[in-house]
């Protein structure tokens, strides 16, 4: 991409982004911490309390020492919502992989990308099609970047169902609840469950992943979707999987649903699990190429 004069504004952006990628794995957003704390107060089982105590103590220790909360600093999953008049998009997309490499070689990220066929580690969290950048064009002249380092243990329990439409919402509940029961402690509960409904096979999974960006406790603006979120959360927490799968009343902290229209002959459902270690940092870049706030 030809660099324009205005790209000079982006000088230092690689370092800023690398710093944010490092920060994202060190600090857990306050609303996630609060949610874990209230789970600790609610739980009555000794083992549920033991795990939540260990989780909360570790979050605090990691913050104090500025070290990664979890050793699995994940696959770098990045959402870019670029304003249609944001002047530095090409430059930003060029810088992101470089920032990921910098945050790995000189920062705290664990090198996690391996060749899918040979298993050989790339050493820099890059490789073909990595990092995953989900680009959306929105109104305005700024860009919002969401960093979502996503651990492998919970990602491995993602799922896609193309249900017979006749099974409807009842079928959705059956699949989602059965899946979470079977997953047990493997995705590191309490989890955040992201569900994409509708669209196509690829769209519903993208929606499920994107739903994890929504702050805990913020319902879907659509009343039907919000009611389903509430009902599923309540049902999931009646399963008794509990923190780390050792029993308890907190299996999920939230269920976030995003939807897209579906073809009447299909009923796609995508599910993404997010472990309790829900790391998420948002950056806004102004039209002047500087990080805002």
């Amino acid at each position, binding site marked *: 991409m030809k660099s324009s004069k205005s790209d000079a504004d982006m000088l230092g952006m690689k370092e800023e982004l690398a710093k944010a990628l490092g920060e994202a794995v060190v600090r857990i957003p306050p609303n996630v911490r609060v949610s874990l704390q209230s789970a600790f107060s609610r739980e009555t089982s000794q083992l549920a309390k033991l795990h939540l105590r260990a989780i909360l103590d570790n979050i605090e220790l990691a913050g104090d020492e500025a070290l990664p909360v979890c050793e699995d600093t994940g696959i770098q999953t990045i959402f870019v919502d670029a304003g249609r008049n944001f002047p530095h998009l090409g430059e930003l997309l060029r810088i992101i992989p470089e920032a990921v490499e910098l945050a790995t070689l000189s920062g705290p990220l664990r090198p996690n990308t391996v060749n899918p066929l040979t298993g050989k580690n790339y050493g820099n969290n890059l490789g073909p099609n990595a990092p995953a950048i989900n680009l959306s064009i929105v109104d305005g002249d700024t860009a919002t970047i969401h960093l979502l380092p996503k651990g492998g243990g919970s990602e491995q329990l993602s799922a896609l169902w193309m249900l017979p439409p006749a099974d409807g919402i009842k079928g959705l509940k059956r699949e989602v609840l059965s899946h979470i029961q079977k997953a*047990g402690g493997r995705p590191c509960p309490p989890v955040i469950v992201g569900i994409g409904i509708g669209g196509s096979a690829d769209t519903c999974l993208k929606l499920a992943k994107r739903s994890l960006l929504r702050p805990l406790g913020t319902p879907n603006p659509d009343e039907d979707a919000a009611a389903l979120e509430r009902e599923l959360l309540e049902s999931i927490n009646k399963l008794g999987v509990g923190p780390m799968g050792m029993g308890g009343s907190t299996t999920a902290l939230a269920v976030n649903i995003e939807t897209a229209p579906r073809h009447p002959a299909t009923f796609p459902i995508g599910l993404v699990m997010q472990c309790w270690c829900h790391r998420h940092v948002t950056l806004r870049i102004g039209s002047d190429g500087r990080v805002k706030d």
Partner: protein
Amino acid sequence: MTEKKVIRTPFDPAEIKSLRSGEIVYLTGRIFTARDQAHILMLRDGIPKNLETKRLAVYHCGPIAKQELGKWRILSAGPTTSMRMESLESDFLELSGALAVIGKGGMGPRTLESLKKLGAVYLSITGGVGVTAMKQLGPVKAVHFLEELGPVEAVWEFDAIELGPLVVTMDTHGHSLHENVAADTRSNLERVLDRA
């Protein structure tokens, strides 16, 4: 609050046999990490001569290890999902003589059977407690297979001081807390689906 129960490596086999599913312990002494790649390599080529494994604990962990001034520094070292090693663990326990497996999420019937046969236990550590575990593990004592496997899959040795809390979730008597919880959650699932 009762006092912490600390178990030490090299383990006394009788003490390991006395542990019961549901008990909470802390571990002090030499332990080594191994993920699936290290299991596969050692099952193929044998245990390196300079790696002691007998009556020790194998920790399912791929730490964040960074080299600083020629020395390895561990930034974070929580457990990885143990189920990934299910097809390998029974053979590895036979080969290594390790008497404890530490990880998260529990393991399946094949490992449970082999724990019973070999008098070994599975100890669960809370997933994601990377910094807490790193502090309890202390400095790196040795590393193996760094060239072949890279720092995440390599075998790291540590002298742990009160690593934990660890929950004994699979004991030498064939009890698995994971199986018990799964039985409960299966019947809860049926109840919830009936109502849905």
